[in-house]
Structure formats: C-alpha cells, structure tokens
C-alpha cells in the first residue's frame, strides 16, 4: 500500500522532535529510518499509526488522509512492533499472536481468527513454544512472536521499531528475511527503524537518514549511505565498500570538532 508522509512536525510541548519530515513508500518496498539515538526514528513510526499525533503534516494512505480513519481500521492497516514491551502479566505466545487479531474481534474470536493464528505460528516456527509464557522466551523467540503478532493483524503496512536490536546474527538475518519475504510476496510496504546500517542497506529499497528530527538524506541506499553523510550525521569516519550493489560500512574513527582524535582500527 502506498504510504506518504508530508511535512510532519511533532513536539512534546517545547522544542520540535520532528521538523518537516516527508517521504513515500510504494507497494512491495522496504524503507529504513536510520540515524543516531534521539534523531526521531521511533517518533516518526508512532506518528504514522497515530500512537502520537503530529502537530502539523499529513500521513496519506493511497492518497487518503489517515486522520479520517478509525483506530480499529488503522490497526487493520498497520502492523506495529514497539521497541520494547512490558511483561508484567505475560500471555502465552499463542494468546500473544491471537492478540494481533484484536482489530477484527468484536465480542468473540472466530474460526477465521484461529486459522490465521495457526498459520502464522507455523510460518514463524513458534509451534514448540506456542503455549509457553511470553516472558520465558529468549530474545530471538520473543521478537519472532512479536513479528507473528504484527502479521496476525493482516496489515498492509509494517511499522517495525528496531526489530533486530538485541538479536544475535542468525536471528537478525532470519527476521529480516521473513519481513522482506512478506513485503515482496504479499505486496506490503514496510517502514523500519534500524541501527545497523549494513543490514539496513542490504534489506531496504530506500533509506531515510535522520539528524536531530530532520531528514538529512533520503533515497536509494547507494545515494544515502556514504562517508560524507555518515560523518555529518553520526560524527564518525567510515570506509564504505560496495558489496553486490549495496554499500557496506566499516567504522574507522570518531570525529570530534572536525578532527580524527581516535582510531578505531589502525
């Protein structure tokens, strides 16, 4: 589904968190939001599905403003994974995934809801732990369960906030493979907040690089991921190589006040 943001401005009272943020994602595309901590990645995701309400600007779905949509319809459109979730009263993995059906449930869960959940649990390889409590799972399993919940929403757009942070290398690739498979296979679109520039570059069609709540650079990976941009935004010197058409970043040194004062690798 085509998603477009235009002129998004957000603040928690004093000082803007986001200024004039706008981009487009087409069907079957993955867009990654990258940038240092506090640059506004999470806030953008939350503005898209109305967890936060932007002060100014529009979010358009197929050209239609989402302001007019009900919360329930938004939940049927956007599959969301937060950066962290509290586990004070943990559900079982099964019930957690079933919770993804909530936007479709009026009073009672129906046959269709269960069938969707059975299918997704199998797809995500969660059968073995389906009836264990969510808080007993390992980090990778938890993340898979959350992805499963987001898929259970039968979304048209995925909004994933750092879906692979805290995961080991294998799980990182696994989750991103599943996501990109779903996006390309089912013609969804995805917006992900990412810390790992290399994986963002490998799995995304577009990258938006943020600096202090503003878009610093946006476009195809090879146009955004380069040494100049990264120096400006992250304050580090990097070497950038191209591997099968995708730029890959190797950090070299920190930049302070324009000078390299510390070599990471010499």
């Amino acid at each position, binding site marked *: 589904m085509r998603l477009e943001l235009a002129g998004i401005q957000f603040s928690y009272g004093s000082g803007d968190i986001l200024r004039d943020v706008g981009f487009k994602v087409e069907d079957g595309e993955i867009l990654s939001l990258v940038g240092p901590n506090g640059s506004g990645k999470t806030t953008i995701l939350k503005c898209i599905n109305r967890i936060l309400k932007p002060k100014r600007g529009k979010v358009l779905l197929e050209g239609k403003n989402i302001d007019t949509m009900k*919360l329930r319809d938004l939940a049927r459109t956007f599959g969301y994974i937060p950066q962290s979730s509290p586990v004070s009263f943990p559900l079982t993995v099964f019930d957690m995934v079933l*919770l993804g059906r909530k936007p479709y449930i009026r009073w009672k869960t129906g046959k269709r809801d269960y069938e969707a959940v059975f299918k997704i649990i199998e797809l995500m390889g969660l059968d073995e732990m389906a*009836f264990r409590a969510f808080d007993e799972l390992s980090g990778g399993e938890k993340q898979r369960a959350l992805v499963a919940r987001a898929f259970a*929403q039968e979304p048209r757009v995925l909004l994933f906030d750092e879906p692979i942070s805290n995961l080991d290398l294998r799980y990182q690739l696994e989750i991103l493979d599943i996501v990109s498979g779903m996006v390309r296979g089912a013609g969804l679109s995805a917006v992900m907040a990412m810390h790992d520039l290399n994986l963002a570059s490998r799995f995304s069609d577009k990258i938006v690089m943020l600096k202090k709540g503003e878009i610093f650079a946006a476009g195809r990976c090879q146009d955004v991921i380069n040494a100049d941009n990264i120096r400006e935004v992250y304050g580090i010197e990097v070497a950038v190589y191209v591997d099968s058409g995708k730029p890959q970043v190797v950090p070299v040194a920190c930049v302070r006040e324009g000078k390299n004062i510390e070599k990471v690798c010499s």
Partner: protein
Amino acid sequence: MHSIRLEERYARLSARKILLVICSLAVLVALIPVAASVGAASLPIVDVFRAIAARIFPFLNLGINQSADTIVWDLRLPRIAMAIIAGGGLALSGTVIQGVMRNPLASPFTLGISAAAGFGAALAIIFGVGVSGSGESLLISNAFIFALLATFVVFSLAKLRRMTPEALILAGIAVMYLFSALTSSLQYIGTTEQVNSVVFWLLGSLAASTWKNVLFVTFIFFVSLPVLIKYSWDLNAMAAGDETAIALGTNTKRARLICLMTATLITASVVCFNGVIGFICLVSPHIARMIVGSDHRFLLPISCIGGAILLLISDTLARIAFQPSEIPIGIMTAFIGVPFFVYLILTRRRGYFL
C-alpha cells in the same frame, strides 16, 4: 500437518480452562448448603435443603418448619448470597484494576476507594452528617458517595498527566492518605463508643446482610460484568503496553477510564454495605492468574468465582470459629487466603498450572 497438532493442543487447553470454570462454579454452589447448615444453631443439611426447596417449589407441599425457614432464608442465605456476590465483585474489580494499571500491587484500595468510604462512614457514625437518610442508610449512602467521590478526584488528578498508570497510582495514594488522615482526625474527636464502631466498620462484616442489600450489589455486579467482559481483549492489549494497545486499536484512555469506573462502582457498592474487606481484591486475581494465566477472557471469571469461594469460606469460618462472637471478615480472609496464596507461590512451576 503441524497445524493440526497445534489446533488440537489449543482446543484441549481451552477445554481444560472451561472445565475449570464449571468445576469451580460447582464447588461454589456445593458450599452454599454447607455454609447454611453451620452456625450458632446447627441445622442438618437435609433440613437446609428442605427449607430451600419448600420456598422454591411451594407446590410440593413439603411442609414449612418455621424455625428452619427463618434461619435459612432470613439469616443465613442473605449473608451467604452477600459473601458470594461481594467476593466475586471485589475479585473482579481487583483483577481489572491490576490489569489496567499493569501493576500486581494495585487494588481498589490503591485508588483510595476504601479510605474514602471509611471516611464517609466515620462521618456518619461520629457526626451523623452526610448525604441522605439517617442511621444505617446515612452510613451506607455516605460510604458509597465518598468512594465514588475519591475516584473522581483521582481521575481528575491523573487526567492532568494523561491518565497513565503511574499518574493514577500516585494520585490514588495521595487521596488514600488524605482520607485516612481525615478519618483518624474524626476518631480523635469521637467518643470511645463511636471510635469502636468506626474500627468495627473498617474491619468489615457481612453480619448486617439483607436481601435488599444483596439485590442492590447483585444488580450493579451484573450491569458491570458484560462491560468488563467486553473489554477483556483491551485489557490483554494494555498488558502489552499502551503503544501496542493503541496499535491494536484500543483507545487506551477511554478503556482505562471505563474499566476503572466500572471497577470502582462494584467496589463502592460492596464496601458501603459490608465495610472494608481488603485482601480479596488483591490476592484473588493473583491466585487466578497462577491457575489460568493472564488471558482476561478466562482470568475474569476464574478470579470472580475464586473470590466468591474465598469470601464465603472466610465468612462461614468467621461465624463459627469463636462462637458466639464473630471474627471480623477482614481478618479472616487474610488468615484463609494467605496460606493458600503462599502455597501457590511455593509450589507453582514456572508458568501455569494449566
């Protein structure tokens, strides 16, 4: 096919949970004649059944034993009915409040409800002033109105901070301490006799139960129940965090407000007739959660039935343990509930019983 196995396992698990609901209901029903047969004048269970049947099926001409009829219908059954509905109601509102606050230590009392009800009661006992009526009805209406008033204050304060669980708990504790202090200052002024009856009221008792009171509490309970059941999915969603809940289509502010208002109404209706019966609303949800897990679709009914059983057993023991005097119900529920609670904590495997 994998999914067949998964489907089967889920069906079996759900069947077990439903069976548990039915069994615990059966236990509750079975306890009624037992509770009705014991007391100051002990009645054989057969006589209890006969007295109950005689009124329900008058056409059977079982012959009315006047004294058994009076004991069962006028003295014991109203009190038993009150224990069931009050226990169920308190457990229900405790479960909802813990769920909405995402806090295992929250209860209607954390919202200041009981402290405010206590102040209302003390006002009626010591100064004889209050909302409406006189004597007993003044006390009841005072306790009820002040309980609602406290919640209103808590909500208004928390609303300034976007109704987050943290804001609600802090506002609740502030209100609780304010009303406790007010009650204490009233006790300071009152005579010994008045102070005694305030203390007695604060400890709770089901002794004054009448059918009329039972009817009122039952009415509020059954008006509230469907609302809370309707919100059980929202409660599950809110347990996963507000952001997730919103992303799943829950209007968290509204859901929180409606759930808390409903829970407050139930608690206020129970507390105003019976005094402060603590503990049940705190511990019954935990017991239920250890048994069926945190899915509110099952948690609400199990907690409710568990609370009813716990209060019925406690009240019955409170009546008969040290005859002819009675132990206040607030004390008894803790004596009965704590060992059971500790047993569950110690024996529970990681995860749930089912």
